[in-house]
Each structure stands twice: as C-alpha cells, then as structure tokens.
C-alpha cells in the first residue's frame, strides 16, 4: 500500500510534466536547485566539525530545530508545497487510517526537496560526530529528525486543513501569514538591534535551550555518541511516534469533517460609480479593485505587502542604515515586491480568463486590460509606498527626503510592473482554485512560478539602475525622471506583453486553467 502511494506521487509529478517543455524546464531547474541545496547544505553542515565541540553542538541543535520549524511553516506559507496528497481526495477509498497515514508519510518523503533536506541533514554525521559511536547513532538520529520534520509538517497542515478550507479560515490565514512573516524576521531584528557580542550571547543561550528540544536531542546524541546519546534517541523516537499518533487522530477527524465553505451574503453596490471612467479601462480597474478586496489570495498579497514594508523599516533602522539609504531602501524593496506580485497577473483570473479572451478582438484590448490592472495596483500601492517612503525619511532624520524617495519607489514599481506584465505572458501558471493546506500551485508548476517571480524581479532590479544610481549618487532631482521612466517601462512592458499575449491567448488560457 505504501508503495502505491509513492508511485502515485511519482506518477502525478510525471503526469504534470507530460508534453509541456516550459514546465519540464521549470521542473529541471527545481531539481537542480534541490541538488545544489542538498550538496551545499551537506558541505556547510560538515564544516561545523571545524568549530569547538560546544559550539558544534549548539549549531547542530539550532540547524535541526530550524529544519523542523521550516518543514512546519513553509507548507503553510505556500499553502502546501505538497500538492498531491489531500486526505479529502482519498477519503472514499477503503483504507484504514493507518494505511493512509503510512502512505501519505511515504509520499511526502518522495520528491526532490524532501530528499535534498535529508541529504543536507546527513551533513551532521560529519559535522557533529566525534567518534564511531557518534556516526552510528547519527545514522539513526538523522532519519529520526527527518521523520520528525515530515510528521510535524503533516500534523499541522492536517489539523488546520478544515479551517483552511472555510472562508473564515482563509481570512484568518491571511492574517496568520503576515504574522508568521513577522515572526521569521524577529531574530533578525533582535540581532540587528543588539551589539555583535550581545547577539552571540543570545545565540548561545538560545541554542543551549534548543539543545533540550527533540531536534536538539538528536544533535546531542550525535555529538555524544555514547549511552546518553542512545537515551536521547529513544526520547526523540517517542516524540515522533506521539506526533504521528496525533496526526492520525487529526487525519481521522479531517476525513469526516464537512466542507463548510459555501455561505455568503450580498455585496454592496459600488459607490465609486462616478469616479471611474466609463469603458473598458474603468471596468478592468473596478474589477481588479474588487478582487484585491474579495479574493483571499489578493488579500493575502496586500496584507503581506504592508507587513513586509513595516519589517523593512524596522530592520533597516536596526542594521544601522541611515541617511538617504534608509529613506529609499524599505520603499524600494516594498515597490519591487508589489510589482513582482503582478508577475502572474492572469493567475488570479484563472479559469475565468476565457471571459476576457472571447471579448478581446485585438491586442489593443489586452493592452487596456494590462493598463487597468497596473492602474488598479497603483491605486493601492501608490499611497502605501508614499507612506513607507515618508516613514523611512522621518526615521532617517530628513522628512524632505520623502519626496524623492516616494518618486523613486513609484518609478521602481512601474519598472517591476512592466517586467511583471511580460512574465505574465511568458511564464503563466495556475493558482489553485481554492486555497487549502495541500495544494500550492498546480502540480508541477512550482518551477514556472519561480521562473516568473525571479525573472520579473531580476529584470526590474537591472532596469531600475539607470535612474537609481544617479538619484542616489548624484542628484535627487533625478527621482522626478524616475517616475516618468517607471511609467514608460510599465507602458513598454504592457505593450510588448499584450502583443505576445494576444497571439498566445489559447496557450495562456491553458496555462492558467490547469486542473488543481
């Protein structure tokens, strides 16, 4: 039975790649990245052996803990990187919960990234062990930590799966995501605020506490290599079994819980009737603004943008940035992030994109569509960036910098929206129809999503340099040109994108309406 699950997962991966070159390339890239991460992780972890014993243990305990936390948090943030094994899809098969749990456990260990993290964790064998006993215990300890990662990850996603499917749960998740993003920045912020020696002290005390957590026990077992280490492993194994048992209970509950996502009230009629222009452009802007408000993914994106802007402000001040750099830094990063969010602009439309496709008779129509999307984006992000730029300027001690900083950030946004429009037609992919804990992008399209995001970001980062460098190093009035430059880039981006996109409309439709 377990083998069937593993084969199912492999077949789902293979099936999603069939006959689609771009996706195969994306997948190849993803595998390549996983291999690099595995080797690099292994190497770095091995190098820990060069540090003193005490320190090696601390680093080991921290790395193991971070690995487990990462496995818990990342799938939640990405709404489940493991897209294939939603228990509700398997509910009708005559499987015992034990078979289901074992099968899903094996399936979640299958794939490039799980194996990459296993390989990287095995670096502890070299990095931490101080003798043959340590190596022998490590051969057990590392798989146990890996199992802990899988079980903890599965437990959390399964326990939350019911909540994540209801509409209210999705709203809560929107806030939770922002919260988690803030949380991951917390150590960073603290370290930035303190002096180097103080942060070293903090790491030492934190690591000494982590040493007693289950993943910390594993690190200690490898470092110890004796009877105490054996005891550590027994405790760790017990914890894994306990979490597994809790997971089975959660799974049993998730399988019989009804889907409660369909109750809805009326919406208010628009009050902006007079403000938006009549015609295609106005229609697109109105629709995009509604989607930013009503579509959970839209809400998440905007919440995240606000939260990340706030974090940027704090961490820039903390890292001792000052002067003009502090005034523009956070706003620029927020601008590029918001712009890159538009790198799969048709993804939110997904399967309903055909309604646009049957209405668009020329590439001009598609260009209007792009323009509406960009304008709607700017209606929200423009003021937001102005606030961030002003806050940065005030923190930097010169409120007047707010003007060039805002203009520069708007320019950056324009450039990023231009490259985002282009990536939207070059590397489109499907967002899952309903966000739940188990499906991220359509199966196998993760690589494509990565290419779209990275392409838009790298392109924008390069294209902004002609105005960024003069503004920072020569004269701030250049920021006035930056706005015009950004607008021109956005215009150029949507012009090229609409030409390509209109010709590729059937392929575009196909790419954003994959079954998820």
């Amino acid at each position, binding site marked *: 039975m377990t083998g069937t699950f593993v084969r199912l997962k492999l077949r789902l991966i293979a099936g999603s790649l069939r006959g689609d070159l771009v996706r195969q390339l994306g997948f190849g890239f993803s595998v390549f990245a996983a291999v690099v991460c595995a080797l690099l992780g292994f190497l770095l972890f091995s190098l820990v052996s060069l540090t003193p014993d005490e320190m090696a243990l601390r680093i080991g305990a921290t790395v193991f803990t971070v690995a487990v936390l990462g496995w818990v948090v990342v799938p939640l943030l990405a709404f489940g990187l493991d897209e294939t094994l939603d228990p509700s899809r398997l509910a009708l098969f005559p499987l015992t919960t034990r078979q289901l749990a074992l099968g899903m456990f094996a399936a979640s260990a299958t794939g490039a990234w799980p194996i990459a993290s296993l390989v990287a964790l095995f670096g502890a064998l070299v990095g931490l062990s101080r003798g043959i006993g340590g190596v022998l215990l490590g051969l057990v300890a590392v798989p146990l930590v890996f199992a802990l990662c899988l079980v903890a990850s599965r437990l959390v996603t399964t326990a939350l799966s019911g909540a994540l499917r209801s509409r209210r749960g999705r709203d809560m998740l929107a806030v939770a995501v922002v919260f988690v993003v803030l949380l991951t920045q917390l150590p960073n912020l603290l370290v930035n605020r303190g002096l180097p020696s103080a942060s070293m002290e903090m790491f030492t005390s934190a690591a000494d506490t982590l040493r007693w957590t289950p993943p910390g026990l594993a690190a200690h077992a490898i470092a110890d290599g004796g009877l105490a280490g054996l005891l550590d492993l027994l405790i760790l194994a017990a914890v894994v079994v306990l979490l597994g048992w809790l997971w089975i209970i959660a799974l049993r509950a998730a399988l019989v819980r009804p889907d409660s996502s369909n*109750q*809805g009230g009326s919406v208010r009629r628009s009050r902006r009737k007079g403000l938006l222009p009549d015609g295609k452009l106005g*229609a697109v802007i109105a629709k995009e603004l509604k989607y930013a408000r009503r579509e959970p993914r839209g809400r998440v994106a905007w919440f995240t943008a606000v939260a990340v802007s706030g974090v940027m402000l704090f961490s820039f001040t903390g890292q001792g940035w000052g002067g003009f750099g502090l005034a523009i830094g956070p706003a620029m990063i927020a601008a590029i992030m918001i712009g890159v969010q538009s790198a799969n602009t048709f993804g939110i439309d997904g399967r309903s994109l*055909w309604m646009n496709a049957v209405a668009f008779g*020329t590439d001009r129509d598609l260009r209007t569509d792009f323009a509406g999307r960009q304008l709607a984006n700017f209606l929200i992000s423009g003021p937001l960036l102005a606030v961030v730029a002003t806050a940065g300027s005030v923190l930097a001690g010169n409120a007047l910098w707010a003007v060039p900083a805002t203009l520069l950030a708007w320019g950056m946004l324009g450039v990023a929206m231009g490259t985002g429009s282009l990536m939207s037609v070059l590397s489109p992919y499907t967002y899952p129809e309903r966000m739940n804990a188990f499906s991220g992008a359509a199966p196998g399209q993760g690589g494509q999503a990565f290419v779209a995001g990275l392409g838009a970001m790298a392109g924008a980062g390069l294209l902004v340099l002609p105005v960024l460098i003069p503004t920072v190093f020569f004269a701030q009035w250049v920021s006035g040109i930056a706005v015009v430059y950004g607008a021109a880039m956005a215009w150029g981006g949507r012009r090229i994108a609409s030409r390509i996109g209109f010709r590729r409309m059937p392929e575009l439709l196909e790419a954003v309406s994959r079954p998820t």
Partner: protein
Amino acid sequence: MEEAVRTRGLVKRFGQQVAVAGVDLIVPKGSFAGLVGPNGAGKTTTLSMVTGLLRPDYGTIAIDGFDVWADPLNVKSRIGVLPEGLRLFERLSGRELLLYNGQLRGIPRAQVQQRAEELLRVMDLTEAQDKLVVDYSTGMRKKIGLAAALLHNPEVLFLDEPFEGVDPVSANTLVEVLQRYTGSGSTVIFSSHVMDLVERLCDWVSVMSRGFIVAQGPVAEVRQGRTLNEAFLDLVGARGHGDGEGLSWLGSR
C-alpha cells in the same frame, strides 16, 4: 443556404490522443442547432476551437464568413459563448459580472445597466443579483453565464451543455429565452447528451462520434422516421454492451 458556422477539416490532437479528427461542421444561419455525441466524441474541443479559445492543429473555421483565427475582431463581436464548466469571475456579484462584461465589450455603461437589469429579471436572478457568483447554484450560474453571453446581442451563440445540472424551472427559462432569440433570426449551437431535448428544440443537428461528424442536417432528415435517440445510437454504433457478456457478478443472486 447561408452558413453561420462552417469548419473545414478541423483537427486537434492532445499528445497521442486525437480529440477531433477532421470535422466539417455546418450550421445554417437562424437555426437552433444541436451538437450531440457520446462522451469523448470531441464536442467540447470542437466548440472551444470554433469560439477561438483553443488553437486547432489543422483546418479553418468561418463564422458569418469571417475566419476565426485570421479576423478575431469581426468574429468576437459576433459570438456569445457559454463554455463547459462555468468558470466565471467568482468574486463579482451577478450584476457586477454583467456590467464588467458589457463594458469590456465597449457598450456604454447606461446601456449595459439597462440590458443587465432586463436580463436579470428575465432570468429570475433579480433577488440574487448582489450575491457573489461563487455562492450561486449550478442553475443560477448557467443563467448568469447565458445572460453574460447574450449581453452584447451576438449573432451566433455557442453553449456547451447548457442544460446539464439545471433544475426544470431554470431549464424552462433558458429554453424560452433561447427560442425567442432564434425566432428573431439569430443562431444557437448547443451541445447536449439529452436527445429528447435536442429533438424538441432543434431544427438542425450534427452528430459527432470519435472526433468525426457522422451525420448532419435538418433533424427530420437525420431521424429518418426513427426517434432521434434511436438514430443516434445507430449512428454512433454503440448498441447493446449493457446486456451481453461480462458483468455476470453484478446484481443480487
């Protein structure tokens, strides 16, 4: 005979599988035409290609004499589409969906509002007009989808399984609207499994099987004295698997 739709040698392959293997679809202007065929016959693929949503591998398509792929501007203003699966803009209310569609096609707002109001009333959706489409039932979705497809008064209307999963009351509304529409000289092409419905509504039928059109013409001509259902079963050559060999284990002993 003036043709609303004419395809020549339409072919579409998905990998190894040939979905449409050379279809010459003819639909005369002003007809209420049915496209029938078993599952997997290629009906949806054909309709997707004809409406410009899927690129054919070979073949040409003309709507009112305009080539779908060479002259999209003239074609798209003339057609209304209700595809399979009813994927609408879920986060708009029914009313907003109609307004968006109308404005996207360049109709002035005041006119869209008036048309939308009338369509919502006829479709019996006035009460639900401010609810999000995501909360609509299947029947309501088909009706709002049809309303969106009719909003710009197209000359040819393509409907993929418009009656599937629709309750009898909504189905009756749909039929009434469509009959009135074809009565004025416009053309409707819809795909369906329900032979009785096709026999009752249509004056023209095209029968598809395994990627080909196996019969096409006025309903009476295709029927040749039989019921349409019998004619259909003869044409697709799919009689009598249900009572023959195999399945001896099925049922109570």
